[in-house]
C-alpha cells in the first residue's frame, strides 16, 4: 500500500471559529498526528487562496488525503471535495470536520472548545486514513416533468416547461384547474379581473400539445430519485364518458339533487352532477357519488341525467361501473404547487363565523362581488338588503399565538381591496380593523394611500369579539364589532350590517401526507420547507423536487408566478444538461455473505435493490444509479452483507475510536 500522506487545514472563519478555538494550537496538534505531513490554519479556507493552499500542497508535498476543519459539511464539503479534485486527487479522499456549528458556535470556554476541536480533527484524520477513491458516474435524466397542483403556480410552471417543448404531466385534484385565483374577483392593487387574466392561461394549459392534464387526480406514490422518478396517479372516476361529454350542462340543469357549491364557498348550490364553473378546464361534468341518488340506490332511483344527456356521456354503465384508474409514468423532475387552504374562522368562537349570517370570509366576499357569482356581483345581506355599514377584520388566524404566528401577507391588501369595492358597489360605510398595515409590494403603498382618501374608517387594533347583543337602540339588529382602538387607547363598539373576516392562508390539510409521498419536509407552520430560505428558495432538500406558490407559505399572485417561473427554470436547466451525476457513496453487497433473506429489498426507499437468482439461490443486487446511499439497507441487513462505500465499518469505527481515545 502507498504511504498515506495527510494534509490538515484548520479554518479560522474570520473570528467565527478563531474567536473561540485556538486554531494555531489545533493546527500544531494536528501536525503531531500519525501520517499528517502538513497542517495549517488560514483565515478563510473556502476562499480561492484557501483552496489554493490545498491544491499546492497536494502537488508539492504529495498529499494523498486531506482534512479541512471548518464549518458544516452541508455548507462546504462540496467546495473542498472540488478543491481536492482540482489538486489531482479523488474527491472522496477528503474528510470534513465541523468545528464551527459543532464547536465554536456552541461553546464559550476557549480551552475546552480547543480541546474538542482537537478531538474532532483527530477523529477526521484517523477516518480519512481509510478513505478509498470512489467513482462518480453520470446517468441520463428523464426530461419529462410532473407538476402537482393546477392553481396559478402549477399552470405557470407547466406552461413555461411545455413551451420549451418538454412533456409535462399536470396533476390537479379538483375537477378543474384554476385554484384559488379562479375564485377571486378583482386582484389588488390594479383591480383587474382575476378571471379575465386567468382563463386564457387555463385554456392554454388545456390545449397544450406538451401538457398532459390529469384533472380530478391525485398522486398516490412516488419512488426513485432525481432523473428517474416513478409516479403513480389515481384518476378519480367522474362517472361520465369523458370522450363524449361536450360540457353542455343539461345534466346539471336536470339533476334534482343539490348541495353547497365548493366553488361558490357555500353561497350557491350545485347539483349531484355538475361542472364546477363556467370556464372549467377540462370542461367536463363530474358526478358526486355521495349525492347522486342513482349511484346510492344502485340504479333504482332517479337517472334523470341519463335521459337528458344527448351526447350519451352519462349512462348506467358510467354511473355504476366506472372506477378510479391508476396511471403510471416516469419523470425526471417534480414541481409541487398545491397551494393553501383558507383558515376556518369558526374555530375562533367569539368572531361568530357560522353563527351570524352576515359574517363572511374573504373568499366568500370574493364570490359575492364577482359579476358571475351567486349575487350577480351585488353586495347583499342574507335577507337581500344592501348593507349600510361593513366591518373588515384583519389578521384572523394570522399573527396570533393561538392560531398561526406568521403573517399571511395578502390579507391587508385584499382587505383594502374590499374597502374600495364596498365603497364603490354598495356605497356603505367601511370600518377597517387592522393591527399593522403591511403594503410592501409594487403599487401596494400607493393603493393604501388612495384608499385613505376614499373615506374609509381605519381603526388600529385587534377585534375582541363580534356579537349581536345590543347595548343601545343604535346597536339593535346589528352586528357589533368590539375592539380596542389602540391609537385612541379606548374600547370601541362599532355596529355594522356585515363583517368580513380576512382569514389566514394555511397549509393544506393534506400537506403532511404529500410531504410523505414526495419525501420532502415541512416547517413548524405546516408549509413545505425550502432548501435554503435565501439562497435556494424554490428547491427542497430532495434533489429534483421543487416547490412553487402558496404551498411554501402565503404569498400574492406576483410572487407566486415569479416562483413558478423559477421552478420551471430549475427544471429546464436540469433537462438541458440531460444527465445527473450519481451518488458515489452507495451501498454494495458482499455476495459471499448475503443469504438472500430479502430484508433489504422492500426497505429501500428508492427501489434500488433487487434479489437476483444466483446458482439456484438468491442474492441481493444494488442498482448503482438508483441507490442514493441512504444506508437503510446496510443498517437493516441481519448478516452485515450490505455495506456503504465511504461509510465502511472500518472508517466509522476508526473515527469513533479516535474520538474517544
Amino acid at each position: 500500500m502507498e504511504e498515506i500522506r495527510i494534509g490538515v487545514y484548520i479554518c479560522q472563519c474570520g473570528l467565527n471559529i478563531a474567536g473561540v478555538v485556538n486554531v494555531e494550537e489545533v493546527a500544531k496538534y494536528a501536525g503531531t498526528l500519525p501520517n499528517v505531513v502538513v497542517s495549517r490554519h488560514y483565515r478563510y479556507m473556502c476562499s480561492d487562496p484557501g483552496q489554493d493552499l490545498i491544491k499546492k500542497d497536494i502537488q508539492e508535498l504529495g498529499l494523498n488525503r486531506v482534512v479541512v476543519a471548518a464549518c458544516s459539511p452541508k455548507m462546504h464539503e462540496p467546495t473542498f471535495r472540488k478543491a481536492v479534485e482540482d489538486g489531482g486527487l479523488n474527491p472522496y479522499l477528503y474528510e470534513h470536520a465541523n468545528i464551527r456549528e459543532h464547536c465554536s458556535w456552541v461553546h464559550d470556554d476557549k480551552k475546552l472548545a480547543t480541546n474538542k476541536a482537537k478531538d474532532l480533527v483527530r477523529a477526521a484524520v484517523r477516518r480519512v486514513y481509510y478513505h478509498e477513491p470512489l467513482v462518480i458516474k453520470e446517468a441520463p435524466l428523464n426530461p419529462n416533468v410532473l407538476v402537482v397542483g393546477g392553481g396559478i403556480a402549477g399552470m405557470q410552471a407547466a406552461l413555461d416547461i411545455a413551451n420549451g417543448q418538454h412533456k409535462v404531466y399536470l396533476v390537479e385534484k379538483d375537477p378543474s384547474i384554476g385554484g384559488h385565483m379562479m375564485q377571486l374577483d378583482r386582484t389588488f392593487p390594479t383591480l383587474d379581473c382575476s378571471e379575465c387574466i386567468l382563463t386564457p392561461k387555463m385554456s392554454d394549459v388545456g390545449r397544450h400539445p406538451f401538457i398532459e392534464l390529469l384533472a380530478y387526480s391525485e398522486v398516490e406514490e412516488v419512488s426513485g430519485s432525481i432523473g428517474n422518478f416513478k409516479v403513480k396517479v389515481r384518476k378519480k372516476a367522474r362517472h361520465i364518458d369523458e370522450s363524449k361529454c361536450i360540457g353542455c350542462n343539461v345534466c346539471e340543469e336536470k339533476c334534482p339533487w343539490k348541495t353547497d357549491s365548493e366553488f361558490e364557498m357555500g353561497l350557491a348550490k350545485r347539483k349531484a352532477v355538475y361542472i364546477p364553473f363556467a370556464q372549467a378546464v377540462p370542461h367536463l361534468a363530474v358526478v358526486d357519488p355521495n349525492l347522486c341518488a342513482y349511484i346510492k340506490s344502485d340504479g333504482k332511483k332517479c337517472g334523470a341525467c341519463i335521459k337528458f344527456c344527448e351526447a350519451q356521456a352519462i349512462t348506467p354503465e358510467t354511473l355504476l361501473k366506472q372506477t378510479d384508474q391508476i396511471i403510471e409514468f416516469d419523470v425526471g423532475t417534480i414541481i409541487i404547487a398545491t397551494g393553501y387552504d383558507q383558515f376556518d374562522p369558526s374555530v375562533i368562537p367569539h368572531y361568530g363565523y357560522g353563527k351570524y349570517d352576515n359574517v363572511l370570509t374573504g373568499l366568500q366576499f370574493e364570490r359575492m362581488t364577482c359579476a358571475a357569482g351567486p349575487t350577480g356581483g351585488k353586495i347583499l345581506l342574507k335577507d337581500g338588503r344592501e348593507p349600510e355599514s361593513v366591518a373588515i377584520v384583519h389578521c384572523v388566524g394570522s399573527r396570533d399565538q393561538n392560531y398561526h404566528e406568521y403573517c399571511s401577507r395578502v390579507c391587508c391588501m385584499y382587505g383594502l381591496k374590499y374597502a374600495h369595492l364596498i365603497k364603490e358597489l354598495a356605497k356603505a360605510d367601511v370600518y377597517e380593523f387592522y393591527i399593522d398595515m403591511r403594503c410592501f409590494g409594487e403599487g401596494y403603498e400607493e393603493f393604501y394611500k388612495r384608499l385613505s382618501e376614499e373615506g374609509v374608517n381605519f381603526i388600529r387594533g385587534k377585534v375582541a369579539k363580534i356579537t349581536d347583543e345590543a347595548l343601545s337602540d343604535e346597536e339593535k339588529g346589528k352586528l357589533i364589532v368590539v375592539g380596542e382602538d389602540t391609537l385612541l387607547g379606548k374600547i370601541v363598539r362599532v355596529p355594522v350590517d356585515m363583517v368580513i373576516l380576512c382569514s389566514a392562508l394555511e397549509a393544506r390539510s393534506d400537506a403532511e401526507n404529500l410531504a410523505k409521498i414526495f419525501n420532502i419536509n415541512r416547517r413548524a407552520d405546516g408549509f413545505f420547507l425550502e432548501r435554503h430560505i435565501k439562497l435556494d428558495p424554490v428547491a427542497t432538500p430532495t434533489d429534483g423536487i421543487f416547490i412553487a406558490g402558496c404551498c411554501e407559505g402565503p404569498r400574492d399572485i406576483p410572487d407566486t408566478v415569479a416562483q413558478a417561473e423559477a421552478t420551471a427554470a430549475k427544471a429546464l436547466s436540469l433537462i438541458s444538461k440531460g444527465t445527473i451525476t450519481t451518488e458515489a457513496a452507495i451501498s454494495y453487497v458482499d455476495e459471499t455473505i448475503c443469504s438472500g433473506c430479502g430484508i433489504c429489498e422492500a426497505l429501500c426507499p428508492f427501489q434500488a435493490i433487487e434479489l437476483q437468482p444466483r446458482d439456484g439461490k438468491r442474492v441481493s443486487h444494488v442498482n448503482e444509479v438508483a441507490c442514493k446511499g441512504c444506508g437503510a439497507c446496510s443498517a437493516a441487513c441481519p448478516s452485515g452483507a450490505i455495506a456503504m462505500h465511504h461509510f465502511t465499518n472500518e472508517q466509522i469505527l476508526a473515527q469513533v475510536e479516535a474520538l474517544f481515545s
Partner: protein
Amino acid sequence: MAKLKVALYWAASCGGCEIATLQIGEKILKLAEAADIVFWPVAVDVKYADVGKMPDKSIDACLFNGAIRTSENEHIAKLLRAKSKLMIAYGSCAYEGCIPGLANFYNRQMIFNRAYVETPSTDNPKKIYPQMRVKVPEGELEIPEFYDTVKTLAQTVDVDYFVPGCPPEEKSTWLALEALIEGKLPPKGTVISPSTKAVCDECPRKKEEKKIKKFYRPYEIIPEPEKCLLEQGLLCYGIATRGGCGALCPQANMPCTGCYGPVEGVIDQGAHFLSALSSIIDSNDPEEIQKIVNDIPDPAGTFYRYSLPASLLRRARIK
C-alpha cells in the same frame, strides 16, 4: 504417525454438546484410529490432578464445551489451555455464553434468591444460601465460587477455533475433527461451520416480500409449508444466524432461534436481528407499531438467547 491427544471438557452447559460429539456416528471409529482421549470426565476416569501433571502443550486439542459460570470452570479452562496446543470452544455455551449466559440479566444474589428461596417447590424459611466455605465437624468444606457474570471461553482464555451450535450439528463437529485429524487447520479464530452465510441460504422455503403486521408464537398458527416463516409472522432468527445446520428447524415448521450465532463478520447478533426485524414492521403508526412489537415475547431473551455474554451488552447493569 503418532496418535493425537484429545481432551474434552464440560463446563457450564446442559451436556447436550457431549452427546453431540457422538452424533458423528461411525466416524467415531476414524477418530479413535487417529486420536487418544486423554481427558473426558463424562466418559473417562482421569482426575484434575492427573491433568495437572501432564506437561504443558502435551494435549493436541481440547474440545471445551460450556460457559464460564464458576471458579471451577475458570480454573479448568486455564489448566486445559496451558496443557493444550489448540483450544476449541465447542458449542454455543463456550462460544457465546448461550442459555447459561441469560443469567447475565440478573446477578448472583438475584439468582440465589430465585433458586433457593422463591421457587414454589423450595421450602427455605431461614433463607440459607450456598456458602463457599462451611465448617463441619470434620473440617472446612469448600465449593467453587459462583460468579456474578457468565463469561464465554474466549473471554477467559485464548481460543483458537469456535464450533457453533446448541448443540453443534454433526457436519460442523466433523468439519472440526477432520481438520484436526488431517492437520488442515484453518486460520486461528475461524468459526468452523459448513456455511458463512445465514440460515436463509440453506432454507428451502420461498421468500417474497417481508412485511409484518403481527407476530405469532409457534403454537398460535399452523404455518404454510413452503412459505418463509418470518413472512408468516413467526420470529424466525434464520436471517441473522449463521447457517451450517442445514436449516433443520424451519424445515420442521419451527422458527430458527439463532443457536449458530452471528453471521461471519457480525459482532452483535441480537442487534442485527433487532434492526432487521424493526425495519420490516408494516406500519407507520406509532401506536400500531407498539402493538405489533408487544407481541414479541421476552424480547431480551429472544434476541440474545444464545449470545448475551458475547454481545456488546454482555450483561444487564443492575443497580
